[in-house]
């Protein structure tokens, strides 16, 4: 129990440590994979799959921590992510994520409005997840993954010039992902009330295929989601409302071996959400990311709000990741 306690505490605590790492910002291209996918283990032989539709409205102009009164630039990063899970054993699950990304940017100039857009397959991710703990009221899952540079990172626009990084669907690099999730019910009298923590860390590598740069390295990204969820019965439907905080840290990108001064920072979002179990095998959810704090380096356009819809189908009688009640 001490060992499990230590691992769980490590996940929880590491979420708030002042990491000094590099990371990919939301102003840069690529699907927001690490913000969207579901962590969780399947039973042996079980298959589940789902669709995540992520709408990221990027409209807030930040200058060294201050939000500027300037909404002339609107960037939308919309992603459809297919997630498939397969339970190799009761503890080990393989996950695949395939994103398709639509990116557009509209600038309202004094003379005219300009819109630029692109779309394409993003970077594919393979992830293995191992369930370290599955006790009566607690679950701990750890994951390790690789993101492959399958998305375009040197796409050209209408005028045949290479689009900036902000409108590239891929990052051009092999990146590595560490993930963990811990959830536990808080009260004996109400076991459906859960305390949930997840941590995702992306270690990015250097690429020579990002726009026109000789080398480019997106900074590493740390995402921590922490909060509560509960289950209530509405008629015959199980509704799972949740209220969480998402902390995001990114360091600065490195372009041609020089730090990009307008990348990196810390974000904190309030994430209300709800999940509905449409049947024993199908669940659907929605979450919103609402910024409540951000401290960004330099001059950046960043997320005003973000909405994520998901629909998951489990081809098994029950899973551990989405149904805490059933696991008890």
């Amino acid at each position, binding site marked *: 129990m001490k060992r499990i306690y230590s691992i769980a505490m490590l996940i929880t605590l590491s979420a708030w440590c002042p990491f000094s790492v590099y990371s990919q910002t939301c102003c840069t291209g690529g699907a927001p994979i690490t913000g969207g996918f579901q962590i969780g283990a399947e039973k042996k032989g079980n298959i589940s799959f789902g669709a995540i539709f992520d709408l990221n409205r990027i409209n807030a102009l930040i200058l060294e921590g201050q939000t500027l009164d300037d909404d002339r630039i609107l960037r939308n990063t919309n992603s459809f992510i297919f997630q498939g899970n397969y339970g190799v054993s009761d503890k080990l699950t393989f996950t695949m994520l395939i994103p398709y990304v639509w990116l557009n*940017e509209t600038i309202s100039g004094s003379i005219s409005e300009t819109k630029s857009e692109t779309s394409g397959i993003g970077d594919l991710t393979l992830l293995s997840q191992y369930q370290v703990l599955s006790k009566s009221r607690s679950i701990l899952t750890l994951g390790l993954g690789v993101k492959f540079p399958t998305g375009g990172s040197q796409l050209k626009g209408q005028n*045949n010039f290479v689009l900036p990084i902000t409108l590239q669907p891929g990052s051009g690099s092999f990146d590595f992902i560490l993930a963990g999730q811990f959830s536990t019910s808080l009260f004996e009298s109400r076991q459906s009330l859960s305390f949930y923590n997840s941590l995702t860390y992306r270690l990015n590598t250097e690429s020579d295929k990002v726009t026109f740069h000789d080398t480019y390295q997106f900074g590493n990204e740390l995402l921590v989601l922490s909060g509560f969820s509960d289950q209530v019965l509405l008629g015959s439907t199980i509704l799972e409302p949740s209220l969480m905080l998402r902390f995001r840290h990114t360091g600065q990108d490195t372009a041609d071996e020089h730090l990009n001064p307008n990348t990196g920072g810390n974000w904190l979002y309030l994430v209300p959400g709800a999940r509905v179990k449409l049947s024993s095998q199908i669940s659907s959810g929605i979450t919103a990311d609402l910024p409540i704090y951000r401290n960004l380096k330099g001059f950046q356009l960043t997320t005003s709000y973000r909405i994520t819809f998901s629909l998951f189908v489990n081809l098994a009688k029950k899973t551990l990741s989405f149904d805490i009640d059933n696991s008890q």
Partner: protein
Amino acid sequence: MRTFSNNAFIVSIVLMSVLLITSCNKDETPAGGDPNPTPRVDVVNIIKDDFQGTELIAYANSDLNVMVAFNATLADGTTLTFEEATVLTFPEILKDTEGNIWNVFGQAVSGPRTGTNLREIRSFMGYWFSFAAFFPKVTLFGESVNERLHVDDPSNDWLVDPDFVFIGSFKDGIPALNQPSFIEYDKKLEVDNKFFLENSDLVIVIQDGDNFKVYPHKILDWHEVVNDVVANEKVVISFCPLTGTSNLWSRVFENQEHVFGVSGLLFNSNLILYDDITDSNWSQIKATSVNGAYKSLESNNLAFKEMNWEAAKMLSQNGSVIKVLSEDTGFSRDYDIYPYGDYRTNHNRISYPLKFEDDRVPSKERVLGVLINDKAKAFRFQDFE
């Protein structure tokens, strides 16, 4: 298990609270400078030179961050001889053997030719790498003239090599100033520490009749293009933060008034402007439309000077007024913040690929480029020592 859950919860809440109360501290740079500078008396350093068959006279003062060049031959055909090591008070910079004294705008302010102007040569300051990129094998003062390499490699659509045109931002992503407002410089503002320019801040200065208009780089870093009216002429002032170069040209041509904006495109890392009527793209350094309906049309360039604010303040003589582009631009920005990190001082950091590179001089050293017959010669501050 209950103990674990409760502890984890409490620790998380405490740490989350610490994170939430972390605030962003902004460095505030005090405005100001010496409000009452003593008149600057210098032994002027000049260079007499011949480039492309033109006799020119160049002046530099590194303390004031100013370098200028003029044609030494007047419009009447007289070639002046300038005295070296003369003691003058800025903005007076040149004295000739006829006894005329000339100011930084090339105007005779005393002597038999008072009111006469030296002829302008297209010349401007900027980072060394930009001259090397646009004018390969650019001649350095003190070196023999090099043969000019083939430069442009145009395509059907572009007058310049489109392989070296890149999207820096999208059109109007950097907003031009179309209705600039100005504040009249008053020494009292500096006494009260309410003026936003430091003595070392670089500015563009344009003569506006008997007065002067000043456009600080720190504002132009964020806007790059200003559509303005100076001395009853509709003009566009442009500044490229990446090449450190400026230009000034008329907005009236082809019998139409134009408004210019920032296209977001860069050629050789240098600003490309667009005009509102044909959406043609204009290279700032080439001063030519390089793409669109106006392709190959050259701009009508006008005279401007660059110097630091300490020097610009000294222009306020004989009742002339200095109007400084106001920080009240209509855009929410903090002009005390430079948006490009260490770009100005990091010689190894060039943001976009260049068609030609040349390491004879550190890339970000500010030099004066003199352009004659589409050939360039560069002068360094150290050449005047």
